[in-house]
């Protein structure tokens, strides 16, 4: 998504300050030298001392628009930004959005949520579960060719064999 074009001596440090991951295919060029801009890309030219502001800008670029999902729990209806969900799961024909400490009953079908969050790095891991990649703490291969995902709230979610390939592609493995 990004390409960083700065002095070689400072490249590593600036990259770290921007919390940046570069890729071969990119839409954005980040540089401290206006002579290095690329005309067919979106160029962000910044001063060396403005990396903090640029990092915030990049967060906005990456995260995009906030998408809120509405659900209910014992305290009533809640609207929660999608990145806060650990996963969405179907139980007894009901769909629940699982957060760190609580879960919301969502009045949507799972495939509807999947479409809603298609650009939000959620991945289907089984017929009944949609997982937020950003909330996975650890991936543990099981002996039965499945994957066991440990989420940041310590819940375990299994990646079904049928969804394994898609999951690995999502991680670019």
């Amino acid at each position: 998504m990004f390409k960083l074009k700065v002095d070689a001596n400072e490249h590593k440090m600036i990259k770290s300050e921007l919390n940046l991951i570069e890729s071969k295919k990119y839409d954005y060029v980040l540089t401290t030298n206006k002579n290095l801009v690329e005309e067919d890309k979106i160029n962000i030219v910044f001063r060396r001392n403005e990396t903090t502001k640029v990092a915030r800008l990049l967060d906005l670029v990456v995260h995009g628009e906030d998408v809120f999902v509405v659900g209910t729990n014992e305290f009533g209806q809640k609207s929660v930004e999608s990145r806060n969900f650990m996963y969405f799961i179907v139980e007894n024909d009901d769909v629940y959005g699982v957060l760190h400490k609580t879960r919301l009953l969502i009045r949507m079908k799972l495939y509807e949520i999947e479409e809603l969050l298609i650009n939000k790095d959620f991945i289907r891991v089984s017929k009944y579960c949609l997982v937020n990649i950003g909330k996975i703490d650890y991936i543990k291969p099981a002996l039965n060719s499945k994957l066991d995902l440990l989420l940041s709230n310590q819940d375990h979610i299994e990646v079904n064999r049928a969804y394994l390939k898609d999951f690995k592609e999502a991680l670019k493995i």
Partner: protein
Amino acid sequence: MLFLLNNPVVAVVFLISVGFSVVMIKKIVDEIKLNQGLKIKQQAMRVNQVGKGLVKRVSALGAGALAPVAVFAVALVIGLNVTPDTTNTDIIDIQSSADIMTIFEEFNDKFETNYYRGGWFGDLEVMNDSLDMAPTSDAESLNVDQGSDDHSEVNNQVDGVDEMDNVITDGLYIFSIYGNEVQVSKAWTQALGSDALELLHTFTYDNNWGCDQSNFYPMGLYEDEDRLIVVGSETTYTCPDYEDNEYPEGEEPMMDYWWGYYEYHQKTKVLVYSKSDFTLEDEYALRGNFIGTRKIGDNLYVVTSQYIPFYNEDVEVENYLPYYEQNEDKTTVAYEDIVYIEGTSPNSFTSFYQVDLDSGDIDMEVVLGDGGYNLYVSNNNMYLVGNIYYFWPASDILAVEEPVYEQKTAIMRVSLFNADNEPALEFDGIGYVDGYIENQFSMDEYNGNLRVTTTVGWWGDVVNYLWVLDENLKIVGQVGGRDLPEEKTLGLPGERIRSTRFNGDYAYVVTFLQTDPFYVINLQDPENPFIEGDLKITGFSEHLQILDDDHILGIGFEADEITGQTIGLKFNIYDVSDKSNPVEAFDNPAVFLYEEYGYGWTSAIWNHKDLLVNLDKGILSMPFSTYGWNETDDYWTYNSGILLFDLSLEDGIGDHEFIVHEENARFDCNVYKSLFIEDQFYTVSNKYIKVAPIDDPTNFTNSITLREFQYQTDPNGNPEVDTDIIED
């Protein structure tokens, strides 16, 4: 690989372990890849979630994956390369025959192949009754006369520790053994000198072969101020089927000693004669095969081994218990006095006896274990060398074809003194070294340390060691070993240790394959011994005799420099005054090439007591034998005699004389010992004792006949040997 093929259960366990490890490693690789992918993805998402416990998790998984293989490898290493802890020797006290049976069963379970069954003769049974020695004598009462203190001594390894010999002198008498006879000859008196030479006394012992018969063969003699001590082996044969009358009346079953149709039973006997009248004063019978003996002062030490057919489930232990008889009084060892050293093959009762020749008291220590093969005795301890087996801990659980074990050399120590420093035998521990111990000269006790040379391997892959063991018989120092630079190895590639001699802070070691590296090893620091110097010459020494601190006499062979084949006998002197640069002291060692002298040999090469060395008299002598062809009578002759050299540290090994008792003798006159009293040189054969002045040794001044032989002729009239002995 061969080990796995021979052990299918172990092989399966091994394959399972490897398979498990492979699966686990694949899982780990997948896991790492997945989580690395996750990490990159989340960084691109600009979230920081991952990485928690990845290293810890992978470490644990890695350990788990390799654990089975590691456990397997550790088990094998422990099982196959056991390093004995000499500080924690498993000495098992025995209380009853049941304990011994348990030891048999446990050992047999581990050692499924009964590879050693105690020799050629099969099972033994207990001998119930002592048979009379029935020595016959033609002696009259002996004249007491005055001899000389200037006489040759037995060539003992350790000063103060006497070794028995087949011919000895006390300056007045010569005592000699041949066959089943011990003879006493007066040799030298103050009044008559060597003119006093006469045969005084012949003890002839039972030599009966057949069912329920026994024979006694004297093996060695000791003498001291008052006593002549004869040590010998008595064998009794029993024929179990004889009494069953399975043979036709009047026919006795043929004895076949070589193929073991008959049972035999052995005792080691000690006969103590008074030197005043040569009457038998005391008789001791010590059960078991003779292993070795020494004498220190009035105490005689004997080691015997009583074989037990432990693989036989019906064996009755009490039939094999060691006992001793003192003038017919029989004492059997108590079970409580027997110890077992775990790991040793429980095939024998090895008995250590101390006989106080003054009081007649006998002390006894009995060890259940492998019979020993080399005995070394210092002034403080007895050391007996045997084998010990270390089994793979699971070898008795898995039904493998061959037991998994490692054989080591065990050195058993029995103290000659108790805690109150009184003469008494006490089992005092055991030490372990790798390799084979060549002979008694391979061991030496000095300042509380035991020094030992060993050779591991027989052909090709041979490694030589010198070990230093501390007072707990734990290895503290070492010279030689595998994978060392050449200057630190003991012997060139493929060479075995052929002879060793220790002298205080130094050891001298000869190895050989093609040439003779003679090593000088510095032992001043027992924990850091090192090779201080070496010398490479042709040939090799089989025995090293200390002449003084700077000179070592080598007795051995000359060898072809290219092929290593022995081409003659060689006697030389090493000058070790410069320990870092040992040299041959003289340019011309005494060499008897076969191509010049015919094939010849000397028993001094393997029996140091046949070697007579005296620098004061300036002599070096030893038996020497060659074959020759008698042109006149057209038959082979056997030229046996004594080779007598001039010897001095100034001129080395000088001219020699060859002293024979019969010119062109047939195979009947074996000259086997030389002695001196004052300036007279005595040579002893099976037929004669002859004496001549040392400076003119072939000019006999006196001679006595000990016995004569009668010969038969073959159909062509040629002489043939007949071993019948005609009493003198």
